């Protein structure tokens, strides 16, 4: 095989790998819509998808789930991944999701999507693979927590539905650290087991060990669901504290 053939094969291989990654990513985004439908959400906006996906990815080392991580950067509305839009367009073209509403204000477009019956059927086939079933299970846990917190008192009234969790995303430690530097387009270390988010999660995982012996430590041991709940609660409390001018710097 000459050099040109080798180079062409390598290119093909990389393209196939990229395509595979995109397939996996599109599956994961489809799971997000599937979970939203199970929670009886009428739709999810583009912003909502970005934020729910961000939580699913940044917290995934807790469950040791390997997701096809997207690159999230710091942008004015919090963590943003430019690939999400392409995948959404792709899913619409597959008729796996559909556009529920579209509004355009100045340069910004606001689109709401929901899963189609074809999309649901796709998911039901995909989850026959245990790995995919596990991914869906994880996304469902995160989405259930988003669902539990999206109705909280004192979150921004500017947004509706899942978009209201923007205030919680702003308090997410890895995002917050980059925001402090105020360098737009900087990459957020999603998927890193040692980022600030995961440090906080590891602390919660063994929180009872930090208690003095006067406490019944066994009583305060947290499981996966209560670790995540405590994490979301922390974000909410930080948001409320910051509103009163006392957030953790």
């Amino acid at each position, binding site marked *: 095989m000459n050099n040109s053939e080798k180079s062409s094969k390598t290119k093909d291989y990389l393209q196939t790998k990229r395509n595979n990654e995109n397939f996996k990513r599109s599956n994961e985004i489809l799971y997000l819509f599937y979970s939203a439908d199970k929670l009886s959400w009428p739709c999810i906006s583009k912003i909502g998808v970005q934020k729910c996906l961000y939580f699913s990815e940044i917290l995934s080392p807790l469950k040791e789930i390997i997701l096809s991580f997207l690159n999230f950067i710091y942008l004015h509305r919090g963590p943003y991944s430019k690939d999400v839009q392409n995948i959404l367009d792709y899913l619409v073209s597959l008729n796996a999701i559909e556009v529920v509403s579209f509004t355009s204000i100045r340069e910004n477009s606001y689109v709401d999507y929901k899963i189609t019956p074809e999309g649901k059927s796709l998911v039901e086939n995909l989850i026959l693979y245990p790995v995919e079933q596990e991914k869906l299970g994880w996304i469902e846990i995160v989405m259930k927590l988003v669902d539990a917190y999206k109705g909280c008192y004192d979150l921004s009234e500017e947004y509706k539905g899942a978009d209201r969790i923007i205030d919680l995303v702003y308090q997410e430690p890895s995002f917050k650290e980059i925001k402090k530097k105020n360098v737009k387009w900087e990459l957020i270390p999603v998927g890193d087991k040692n980022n600030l988010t995961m440090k906080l999660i590891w*602390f919660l995982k063994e*929180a009872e060990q*930090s208690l*003095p012996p006067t406490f019944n430590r066994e009583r305060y041991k947290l499981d996966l669901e209560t670790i995540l709940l405590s994490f979301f*609660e922390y974000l909410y409390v930080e948001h409320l*504290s910051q509103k009163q*001018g*006392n957030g953790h710097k």
Partner: protein
Amino acid sequence: MWNIYPKNKEMDTNKLIKIVTSNPILEACREIDVNPTDLIKFYNNLDRLLKKDIPYGEIGERFTFLLVLTKGEKEIETELNIFETNVFVEEIKKGLFDKSNVLFVNSNGMVVTKFGDQFLNDYVQAAKLSQEHGKIVLFIQYMELHFFANGKPIYYDPNILQSERIGITTPKTLPAREYRQLILNQYSEMVSKQRCLQYWANKARRLLKSRPEIYFHKPLWWYLNEYVVDGKVDSGASISGTEDRTDIRILTFESREVYIIEIKCLGRTESGTYLSDDWANQGLIQINLYLKGESDSTRGTLVLYDGREKDEDIAWCTKIDCSPKYDNDPMRFYLESESASVKSKKIYGNLKKRLRSG
């Protein structure tokens, strides 16, 4: 040897531990088999309903409910959802719940069924119902909330509109070692203004309700629980190895300190009991016994709410053997019963007298 508490500048570990140990939802999940995410969803929606959506001015005391949380299995829902505020408020206004205020609801707020034709307006009945059914029961009366799981009190909030989320840091939050300042702040904000506290049976005659301590105990526990930033605040914790129970105990996370607070009330009660110097001295003995009995205790104090006729010092018994941990300055708060207009009239009368006498 216990772990060294992790010092971490990147996160507020006190806030995290406060949430883990004191958040009512996590506490409830330790008492009863319930899905934590379902419960937090219900609690968040209820919090929003009570803080933002309920027109208290319009429905006032009619807003008395006992909510029994179901697990959402094989239930036939009615068409009423308590989180659909407009509909719910309309039903209240129409008087739908005037005779029957016990609602079985699922975590989405859907009313599953009304429980017979009972109107319960007492948190003790709510606790009983919670124990009988092994369920989470929330008793809401106007702006007051009682939260039970399996009959056990989990959380109490004397004023929903003023309450903060557990773990929040505000200009009012302080470390546990500042407990005296916090008790003082609670007196200024709540007791002196009689906000969320109803301890007088007959204010004009300065008659306190029977067993008056209970009317001060819960609101003080609530205040400390909200505003102590570095510790867990317990009510009725037992002294190690005994059946004695402290009124309030604060366990700090990092510094391993234990503070004990004993509450006593002085004055005449509606049942005719007169509580005065003897009662205060008994309180002093009690707090000192607790401090001696609890080897981990750091400091403790006696808080006296004084409803006697005159604002007089206590005749303390000098023979009481006080622990070195006893904060040698009991906090006595004289309970005012005169309205501002009566008080100003008196002050002005005294002023005039003094002016006349030169």
